[in-house]
């Protein structure tokens, strides 16, 4: 039987479509269809000035906005040879790690829903909501921040930031623990996720897996450690790795990463210096020299890469994005074959794709 799953299906995480060939409840073959959310971001980037492109990057992976902004800003900064003030770097790292937690909390909620539990969503969204309230206080928007600037950030943190963080962090730790407690080791959840959607480490590398999906296979690869960008070499954090490369390991890695992110935020808050937050560039028009640059960073979903070609004008000549979700999704055919229909939902959920990024 040919079963059309999506684009209007509650658990395809947006507008993803899978055409499943099923034999009873077993999936024989699958053909993924993407492109329902194609907005031509890469082409749009060519028509926007450098400072306007940031708004487009907000909308790529729309649950990890700060991380996207960061990688783009770093690309332009590298092209221009621009130094970012220390304080701005710390602000960026704190916000990015908080965003990573928010993104992973969203993941915990959706995997819970995919597996059939409603409550983890509510628990996880409570934490995410707290983070977003902080983002609103800092950047003025809950999701589409447009806060990072080429050479710094838009403006300094609000005066009561320290106090807000002091209130937020213990609550956040509690939220993370709760969403962990209600789901991770629940027996039914375990039996749904363990040994489902298993992928070997070699296959994962061949498919171009990055991020938690790759680490779930037991490969300790994290751009923050492998090729430290920004100021990530100053923090002490662990890289959790899984064992079998199945859905549950991917889940576990994400949950552990939230604790690690909390560690990084703690350290960054301690080390944060005072000072300027915008580079000397000021408000001048950004016109990087002709040339090309490739920059990568660790997004919640994996390694995001930006290949930026400039021809010396005020707009990028070409901007190619390597979206982590897209590369992780490419293995869907491999993962879904010979699984159950119910598993397809969980496997897709454990890859944690964001269609805004897949389709661009």
């Amino acid at each position, binding site marked *: 039987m040919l079963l059309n799953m999506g684009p209007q299906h509650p658990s395809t995480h947006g507008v993803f479509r899978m055409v499943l060939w099923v034999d009873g409840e077993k999936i024989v073959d699958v053909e993924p269809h993407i492109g329902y959310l194609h907005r031509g971001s890469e082409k749009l980037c060519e028509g926007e000035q450098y*400072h306007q492109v940031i*708004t487009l990057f907000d909308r790529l992976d729309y649950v990890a906005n700060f991380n996207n902004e960061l990688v783009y800003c770093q690309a332009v900064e590298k092209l221009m040879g621009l130094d970012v003030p220390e304080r701005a770097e710390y602000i960026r790292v704190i916000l990015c790690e908080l965003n990573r937690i928010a993104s992973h909390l969203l993941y915990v909620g959706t995997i819970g829903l995919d597996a059939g539990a409603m409550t983890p969503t509510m628990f996880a969204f409570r934490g995410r909501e707290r983070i977003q*309230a902080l983002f*609103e206080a800092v950047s003025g928007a809950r999701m589409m921040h*447009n806060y990072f600037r080429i050479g710094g950030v838009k403006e300094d943190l*609000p005066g009561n930031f320290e106090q807000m963080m002091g209130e937020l962090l213990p609550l956040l730790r509690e939220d993370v623990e709760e969403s962990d*407690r209600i789901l991770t080791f*629940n*027996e039914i959840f375990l039996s749904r996720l363990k040994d489902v959607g298993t992928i070997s480490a070699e296959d994962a590398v061949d498919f171009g897996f990055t991020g938690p999906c790759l680490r779930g296979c037991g490969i300790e690869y994290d751009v923050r450690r492998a090729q430290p960008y920004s100021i990530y070499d100053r923090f002490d954090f662990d890289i959790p790795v899984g064992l079998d490369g199945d859905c549950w390991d991917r889940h576990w890695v994400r949950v552990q990463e939230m604790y690690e992110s909390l560690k990084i935020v703690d350290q960054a808050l301690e080390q944060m210096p005072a000072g300027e937050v915008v580079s000397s560039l000021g*408000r001048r028009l950004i016109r990087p020299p002709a040339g090309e640059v490739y920059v990568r960073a660790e997004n919640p979903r994996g390694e995001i890469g930006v290949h930026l070609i400039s021809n010396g004008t005020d707009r990028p000549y070409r901007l190619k994005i390597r979206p982590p979700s897209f590369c992780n999704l490419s293995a869907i055919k491999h993962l879904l074959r010979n699984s159950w229909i119910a598993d397809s939902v969980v496997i897709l959920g454990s890859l944690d794709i964001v269609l805004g990024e897949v389709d661009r």
Partner: protein
Amino acid sequence: MLNSVKGMMLTLASTFTGLRKPVTRQYPTVPTPVQPRFMGFPALTWDDGVGEPYCTGCMVCIRNCPTQCMSASMMDNPLNEEGKSSRRKIVDYFEINLNRCILCGICVEVCNFDAIVMSHEHEMSTYQRNGDRVDLPALLDIGKKYQVNTAWIPPTVLAKAKKEAEDAAKAAAAAEASSGETAAAGQEAT
């Protein structure tokens, strides 16, 4: 079943308000406060001292808007001819299609005249597709409301005051340094 039982205890605990408070906000009846930096829809500010908009219709925001959601035109300022205003040009016509606006705040950043702000207005849904095309009076209304509610001070004035304060502090430090130290140190400070 131990972990299942743990999970059940957690959800049970949620049931009692005393243990864990519900997070629901009764939104439309109890308005949710926004943060001071909240970026709602852009609006134009009103110069109370003169009685005209700050905006001169210079079009810089329009050129910088990523979505091209605004349009404007400028005219000679009648108040300037009367000598009441220092602005030679003033905005004649201004329209923002708020449905296209992505609330990025770039217009506010690039404005040289403190003329545009991100207001705290966010409840503006309408039933018509073009129902959120707002013109100059409407934008000024939103802006005035924002100015009153947040006791708005033009950012350039703030920056000036800050710079003056810093300069004064520097000067004071320099004076302190020069008074007690040698002339060379004083020279360095100046």
